[in-house]
C-alpha cells in the first residue's frame, strides 16, 4: 500500500514539488508512527513560526 501511494503521489504531484515533498514526509511519518505521527508532524509544521519566535 505504501509503495502504491508513493507512486501515486509522484505521479499526481509531479508539477508541485512542495506538495509532493510534504506528501512523502507525511507518508514516511505514517509508516513509522501512524496516525498520531502524522498529526504531530502537521502540528509541528504549523507551529514552526511560533517556535522560531520563541527561539528568537
Amino acid at each position, binding site marked *: *500500500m505504501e509503495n502504491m*501511494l508513493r507512486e*501515486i*503521489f509522484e505521479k499526481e504531484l509531479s508539477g508541485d514539488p512542495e*506538495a509532493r515533498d510534504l506528501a512523502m514526509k507525511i507518508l514516511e511519518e*505514517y509508516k513509522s508512527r501512524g496516525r498520531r505521527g502524522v*498529526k504531530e508532524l502537521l*502540528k509541528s509544521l*504549523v507551529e514552526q*513560526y511560533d517556535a522560531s519566535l520563541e527561539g528568537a
Partner: protein
Amino acid sequence: MTLLLRELEVEGFRVFRDPFKIKINEGLTVISGPVGSGKSSIISAIEYALYGTDANIDKKLYTRRDLVNDSSETARVSLLVEAEGEGLYKFERIITKSGKEKATLVLPSGETIQGAEAIKGLVEELTGLDFFEFSRSVAVSYVSLFLLAYGGSSDRSNVIDRLLGIESVKELASSLSIKLLENKLNEIDSQIESIREIFGGETYETSRQEEYTVVKKELEGFKAEKEKLENEKKKLEPYAEKYQQIEQQIKGGEGALKVLEEQLKKGVLSMEEITEALIQVQEKILSTAEKLQVPDSTRKKIENIEIGGKNLENVFGELEAAYSELTNIYYEKYEALKEQEAHLKELHGRLRAIEENLVNFERDVDNYEKAERIVEELKNKYGDEKELHQKIQELSRELDELQRASQMERYALVLKRHVAEKVAKNGEADCPVCGYKVTPEFLEKAKLDVSQGSKKLRDIEEKIRQLEERIKELKSALEDLRTYNLVIISLQDRYDTYHEMLDQKQQLEEELETENMEFQKAKAALEDIEVELKQARNELSRLRKEYAKIPLVNQAYEIKSNLSKLQANLSELKPYWEKYRELEEKIRELESRINEKTQRLSFLEEKSEEIKRTMDKLEELRLERERIARMAQNISKIKGILINVHSELRKNKIQELNNTMNMLVKTMYPYTDIEEVRVRIRTPPKAENRQPQKKYSTYVIEAKTSGNWLPFTSRMSDGQKTIIFLALALGISMLTNKKVGFVILDEPLPNVDTQIKISFLKNILPSLGLRQAIITTQAEDIAEKLEEVTLVKLKR
C-alpha cells in the same frame, strides 16, 4: 503454507469443568448440542488459545477471568495447529481466577516461546490476520454478522475497509486535519487585523510620513525666520541697551528725588530763621549755665559765641561744645545729688532700725508703766509697804483676841447646855468646873445666859470674818505692791533705753526733714536744668537738620532737571526699543513653535521605528499566512488524492467482493428469488470548482429481486438477510484470508429452512476453497443426514 486445526483440549474452561479433547479432521466438523452444552466455548477456546482473547472479551461482554469455570481454580486450553510444510505448533494457555495467565507456544522445531506478546506476534504472522480480522473473516458468529449488517453505514464501511485492507488510506487521509491549518490561518488573520486596528497599517504610515515632511518644512521655515529676526534684533541692540540704561537712570533719579521730597516735605527754614533760633538757643544755654553755677570761664565762653554770617557750621560746633560742657557739669551735680540721696537713704535706714527697735521695747515699757501706775494707786490706797505691813500686824493681833473670846464663849455655852440637860434629867447637877450645885431654878437663868451667849458669839464671829477679809485684802495689796515694785526694778534699764532711743529718733527725724527739703529743692532745680538742656539739645539738633536741608533743595532741582533731559532722550529711543521688544516677542514665539515642531518631529521619528517594527511583524505574519495557506492547500490536495485512491481501491475490491458474494449465494442458496447481491459504493457529491475531495464514500448492501435493486433490509425475510450477511462475511474472508485453511462459524443460520442449511453445509468448503470448517448448530438432525461430516455431540 496453509494453517489447519488439529486438536483442541480444554479443562476448567468456561462450561468445561473436566478435561475435554477433540480431534479436528479435514472437512466439515459440526458441533451440536443443546443450549449451554459448550458449543460456543469450543470456538472461544480456539480463539483464546491463538490470540489470548475471544470475541466476547473483545466486545467487553466479559473478562478473561470469566473464562475459568465456576468450579475450577484455573482454566487450561491447548491447541495443536499444523502449518503445512512446517509442522505442528502447540499453543497452551493457563489462566487463574485472579486473571494471571501463562502462555506457551511450542514451535515445530521444539523450541518454546513464552509470553503473550511474543506469541501474539507469531500468531499474526502465521495467520496473516490480527484478532479483529480473524474474528470477522475466520471465526464468524451470528452476532458479528448481525452487527455488521445492522450497524451504521459509516461503521460498516470502516469494518469492510479494514477487512479489505484499505482502511489505512482512509486513516491517513482523515489524519490530515485541515481544521488545524484553518484555525492557524484564523489566528494569524486575527493578529494581522488586531495590529492593523492599533496602528492603522499602511495608511497610518503614509500619513505619518506626509506629516513628517510637512513638520520638517515648517521647522526649517521657523528657523530661517528666527535667524532673520535675530539679525534685525542685533542691529537694534545698542539702542535697546541705551534705552534700558536711561530707564535705569530715570528710575534711580526718581527714587532719589522721592527721598529728597520726603525730607523736604515739612518745609525748609531760611538762614535768618536758623540764626534767630540759634541766638535763642545760646540764651537758653547761658541761662542754664547760670542755674548750674558754672565757672565764669565757661559762662564767658558761651557769651562769646558769635552767631552771624553764612557759615553756621562753626556756631553749631561751639554751641554743641558748650552744651556738652554744661552736660558734664550737670552730671557732676547730678552725682552730688545722688550722694545726697544716698545719705538720705542711710538716715532713713537708721530711723527704720530705731523704729524697729522701739517696737521691741514697747511691751516692756507698757509693763513698766502699768506697774508704776499700780504701785502709785496701791500707795495712795494703803500707804507704802511699811505702813501696810504695820496695819496687817495690828489687825492680826485683834483677830487673835477675838478668836480667843469666841472660843471661851463657845465652851461656856457647851457647859451650860450640858448642865441644863443633866438638871432636866436629874433635877439637879454639879458644875463640872466649879462643882457648884445647879438647881432647876438656875436652869431658867442658864437658858437666858445661853441665849445671850449665842448672840454674843455670833457678833464675835462676824467681827472675826470682817477682820479676816480685811487682813486678806491688805496682804494681797502688800503682795501686789511688792510684785510691781520688782517689775519696776527689773524693767528700769529697758525703760530708760527706750526713752533714749525715742530721743535719737526725734533727732534723726529732724535731721532727715532738713536734709530732705534741701535734697528735694536741689533735685527740682536739677530736673529743670535737665529739661532745659534737653530742649537746647533738641533745638540744636532740629536746627542742624534744617541747616542740612538747605543744599537738598538745590540737589532736588538738579535731579529734576536731569530727569527731564533723560525723559527726552528716552522718548527719542522709544520707537527703537518698542521695535526691539516686538522682535524679542516674535523670536520667543518662534522658539516655542520650533520647540513644539522639534518635539513632534522627534515623536514621529520614534513612531517611525515602532511602525517599522510593526510593519516587519505584519510582513512576517503575511509570509507565515502564505506558508500556512500553501500548506493547507497542499494538505488538502494530498487528502483529496488519498480520498480518491481510497475510493478507487474500494471500487476494485468491491467488484471482487461482489463476484465472490454472488458465487456463494448461488451455491449455498437453493432458491432463485435472490437474483443478485452487491455492495455498492455510495459516493458523496463531487466537490465544486475542481476542489480536492473532502468527503468519503460509504458502502450500501443491496439485493436484486424481480429485476430491481433494493437495500437488503427491504422486502427480505430474516433468512434471506442472513444468507446475504453470510455471503458478505465469507466473501470478505475469501478476499483477505490467504493463509488460514479453516473457517469457524458459530450458529451461522439460525433462521433458515432445512433446504438452505443442507445446501449451505454441503457447499461451504468447496465454495470457499477451504479445507476445514467448524460449525456449531443445534440442528443436529440435519448434520446427521450429511455425508463426510465429523459430528461432535455435546451434552449439558
